[in-house]
């Protein structure tokens, strides 16, 4: 036997071994499933053995509530000062005194804010950006959403600086102390970002009541992780020579951090700031359920009353706000990344900050004018217009003319796809799932991963949430699958043609900044409530990473390798299948991973349109303020996400290591 033959045999053996192992494992699970009359405890988790984790959590929360109310009250009191100021300034007017002596100081004039937004956009990215940002604000004003939008903006404007400062300090701490990062910060960040947004609301509601403050705290917790990550990443990416330089210049530890490392990391930090803003907007919308008010509350009210027209209008205002904030903060981040352009240092404030001075002057002038001319204070009714009837008519028209088609599509989907998969998932033996996932964990990442994955799966079962967990897995799985089925081919086309990429990129950029709430509205207009709506909204929300990572992964394949393939006489098809795809696969899998996580986040929000899964569990807990139930269900959702994420990451890491 030659040497090459023996090595290749030695290399292929483990793969075959794993095939056998998997075949055996599947056979065992099938046997358990078939023997479910004999072994009922292995299929459905016995009700008698449920661990009452939910009750424990409830008890803990009420203990905290009763013993630390002084703390939560003082936090509320402190935080409400800046928050009230921002809300009054932008939306509510200042009211000083009571009753007859009440003096009302007006809020900022809408005209002034629109012009200010325009100036900010122009300063950051030229006339085009100015027109876009100013236009978005004007749109909000003209469509009669001004007060709600300003409430939302006020909350964001207080929550975001808070997130940035906290994230910066936590990130610095994690960067300084690797043990803290490994043991504390990283797991906490993972958990914070995979726990569904709803689940945050429950403890906040319990501790801080139904108020903008609790909405703000929930927002701050949800939106801080990207800043922490950006700080850690930015600091670790500073070239080691710059680090050496700061030592050689004789910097003390503090000088080094604040004057060398953080400024050098500024481009990465600004990316973090952009993410914080977008997450905060997303969360503020959802936090309308616990008293944030604003645009989210309008959507929520309209959806509950099934007023699709109003919901759509408020939703579009959210879209406008999201686009304005995103483009503005991205442009600012880009300016920072490119560094400054030389400006003569000038002593006067006006010369140094012409745009800021102008904006302040205009805001002051228009607000003062508002005292005399009502049109400046509030958007006059005469110039606003509403599109709600239009949307309503459109929906009615579609419903009347296409009811049969839509209904047939919906029913066919439910009968042929959703229900069978659902039945399969819900009937899946829990012990079998623990076993198979553990096995996958062992194959991909060794004993530790296997233990983690199995433990998290067991948690879902022993808390008595197995059936709902599987209902979530089913809907999330189908949605993610369809999202990949749509997204990967689009990504493929985008990677092959610059023209397609040019069309696709702005679309997915916009899809990505939209708060998850907005996806439900148009779908619910057509498909009413139910699993189909949830699925379609989730697919629309989760398709972005599948497209983006596929495109990116394929475009990243070094051109030299493609040339090498061509020179060796590969056809286009062979080049793609044998060279491009294997090299891009880790990146594509990363996209799939992201798609699954996004689908999971979205599925939970879809509880609002009547799904029956863990999301519904959280939703019910929220309405009953049952913290234990909500938190446990939230953890179960987070654990699904963590299991999927860890398995995919381990797999990707393995594939990467093989490619070198």
């Amino acid at each position, binding site marked *: 036997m030659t040497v090459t033959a023996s090595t290749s045999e030695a290399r292929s053996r483990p793969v075959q071994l794993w095939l056998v192992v998997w075949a055996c494992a599947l056979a065992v699970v099938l046997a358990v499933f078939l023997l479910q009359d004999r072994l009922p405890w292995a299929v459905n988790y016995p009700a008698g053995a449920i661990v009452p984790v939910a009750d424990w959590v409830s008890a803990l929360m009420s203990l905290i509530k009763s013993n630390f109310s002084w703390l939560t009250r003082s936090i509320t009191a402190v935080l409400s000062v800046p928050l009230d100021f921002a809300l009054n300034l932008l939306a509510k007017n200042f009211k000083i005194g009571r009753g007859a002596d009440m003096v009302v100081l007006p809020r900022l004039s809408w005209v002034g804010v629109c012009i200010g937004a325009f100036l900010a956009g122009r300063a950051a990215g030229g006339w085009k950006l100015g027109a876009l940002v100013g236009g978005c604000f004007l749109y909000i004003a003209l469509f009669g959403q001004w007060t709600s939008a300003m409430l939302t903006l006020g909350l964001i404007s207080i929550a975001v600086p808070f997130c940035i400062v906290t994230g910066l300090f936590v990130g610095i701490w994690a960067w300084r102390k690797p043990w803290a990062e490994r043991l504390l910060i990283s797991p906490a960040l993972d958990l914070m970002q995979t726990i569904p947004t709803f689940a945050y609301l429950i403890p906040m509601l319990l501790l801080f009541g139904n108020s903008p403050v609790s909405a703000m705290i929930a927002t701050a917790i949800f939106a801080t992780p990207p800043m922490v990550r950006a700080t850690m990443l930015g600091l670790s990416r500073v070239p080691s020579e710059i680090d050496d330089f700061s030592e050689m*210049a004789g910097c003390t530890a503090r000088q080094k951090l604040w004057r060398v490392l953080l400024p050098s990391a500024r481009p990465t930090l600004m990316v973090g700031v952009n993410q914080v803003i977008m997450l905060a907007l997303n969360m503020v919308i959802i936090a309308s359920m616990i008293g944030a008010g604003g645009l989210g509350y309008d959507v929520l009210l309209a959806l509950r009353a099934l007023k699709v027209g109003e919901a759509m209008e408020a939703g579009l205002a959210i879209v406008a706000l999201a686009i304005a904030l995103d483009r503005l903060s991205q442009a600012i981040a880009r300016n920072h990344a490119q560094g*400054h352009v030389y400006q003569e240092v000038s002593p006067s404030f006006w010369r140094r900050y012409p745009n800021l001075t102008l904006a302040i002057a205009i805001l002051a002038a228009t607000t003062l004018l508002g005292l005399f001319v009502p049109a400046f204070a509030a958007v006059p009714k005469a110039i606003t217009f509403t599109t709600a009837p239009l949307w309503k008519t459109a929906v009615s028209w579609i419903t009347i003319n296409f009811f049969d088609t839509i209904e047939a599509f919906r029913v066919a989907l439910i009968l042929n796809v959703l229900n069978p998969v659902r039945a399969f998932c819900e009937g899946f033996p829990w012990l079998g799932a623990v076993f198979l996932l553990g096995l996958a964990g062992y194959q991909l990442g060794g004993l530790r991963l296997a233990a983690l994955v199995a433990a998290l799966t067991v948690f879902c079962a022993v808390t008595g949430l197995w059936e709902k967990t599987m209902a979530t897995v089913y809907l999330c799985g189908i949605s993610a699958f369809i999202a990949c089925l749509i997204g990967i081919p689009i990504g493929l086309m985008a990677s092959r043609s610059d023209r397609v990429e040019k069309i696709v990129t702005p679309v997915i950029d916009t899809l990505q900044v939209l708060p998850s709430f907005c996806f439900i509205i148009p779908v619910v207009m057509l498909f009413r409530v139910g699993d189909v709506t949830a699925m379609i909204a989730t697919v629309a929300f989760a398709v972005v990473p599948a497209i983006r990572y596929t495109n990116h992964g394929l475009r990243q394949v070094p051109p030299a390798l493609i040339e090498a393939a061509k020179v060796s006489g590969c056809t286009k098809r062979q080049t793609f299948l044998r060279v491009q795809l294997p090299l891009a696969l880790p990146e594509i899998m990363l996209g799939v991973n992201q798609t699954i996580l996004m689908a999971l986040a979205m599925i939970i929000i879809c509880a609002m349109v009547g799904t029956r899964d863990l999301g519904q569990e959280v939703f019910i807990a929220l309405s009953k303020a049952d913290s234990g139930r909500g938190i446990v269900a939230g953890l179960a959702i987070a654990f699904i996400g963590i299991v999927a994420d860890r398995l995919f990451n381990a797999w990707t890491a393995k594939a990467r290591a093989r490619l070198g």
Partner: protein
Amino acid sequence: MADTTEQVPHAAGMPNDARPIKLACRNVWKLFGANAANFIRQRNGKASMADVAAAGLVGAVRAVDLEIRQGEIFIIMGLSGSGKSTLVRCMSRLVEPTHGKVEFEGKDLLKISDGALIELRRHRMGMVFQNFALLPHLNVLENIAFPLGIQGQDRPTREKRAREVIELVGLRGREHFYPRELSGGQQQRVGIARSLATKPEIWFLDEPFSALDPLIRREMQDELMRLQTMLHKTIVFITHDFDEAIRLADRIAIMKDGEVIQIGTPEELVVNPATDYVAEFTRDVDRAKVISARSLMRACDGTEHGGAVAPDAKISSFSASIVSAGKPFAVVNGTGKPIGEVTPQAVIDLLAGIERPGAGA
């Protein structure tokens, strides 16, 4: 020049150098791996490469002994992975050596407090980096003034000094440019200016010209020589380019696998390479530019001389005239007394690369 630190007679690489020792490494080790400090202490600072490997350690710097004299350009030459960057970082304590002593003017640098180290770095050491290490958020003026700001100097003082060094490195008119707006050569001029702003006594240059194009590199080497004739710093210069080392060095230390395998003037390395490895480097060197009359001379045998040269004169400086004269040249010392002679034949042999027993050194 405002920057002149010490006036030292420029006696390049002479044996029995009388200048004081500025910086010395005494049996310096840097080992990576578990328990490296114990390993080397138990062996009293002695270990072979095989010992190190057997203990599962990686020896980045091994048993380095060297002395750098005031006003000298000392070059550490080695290929990538030879440990030269780690060694220079041990000298400035950016990397903590595992074993040994680093003496700065006779004081052990490894024993001084953090505060004293910061003081030392602020006022007496300067460093230039391969990839410039300029701060991207500051302009040229602010970058150069940065180390002074760290010391606590006020803005007018530090900007005045920054403008002086900007003038010195020929960057006038670029004060308000940002690093990304400058070419590589200009960026390194900023790096050089920044390291000179604090008037350091010892100047570490870590492959300063390796990231530059060959033409710019040559220009910057000339620039460095120009600065050195004015400033007389003690320079520790890292490079992987032997030609660059020969062009600039008073003395060269050649490193391989973490060890210094030979220290000497360019001429000593070319004439007496310690190992085949060194000989390999010196093979393609233009010998006429390195070897001096002293190495090529023989005792006078009474023939008439066509001219006279100093013992330190490089062969290339008189090769054309000696060959056209066709007569030996006398080698005369400072008092004008002949100490030997160089024959045209020896020069021709050297230029043609012919080895003749008995000729030359």
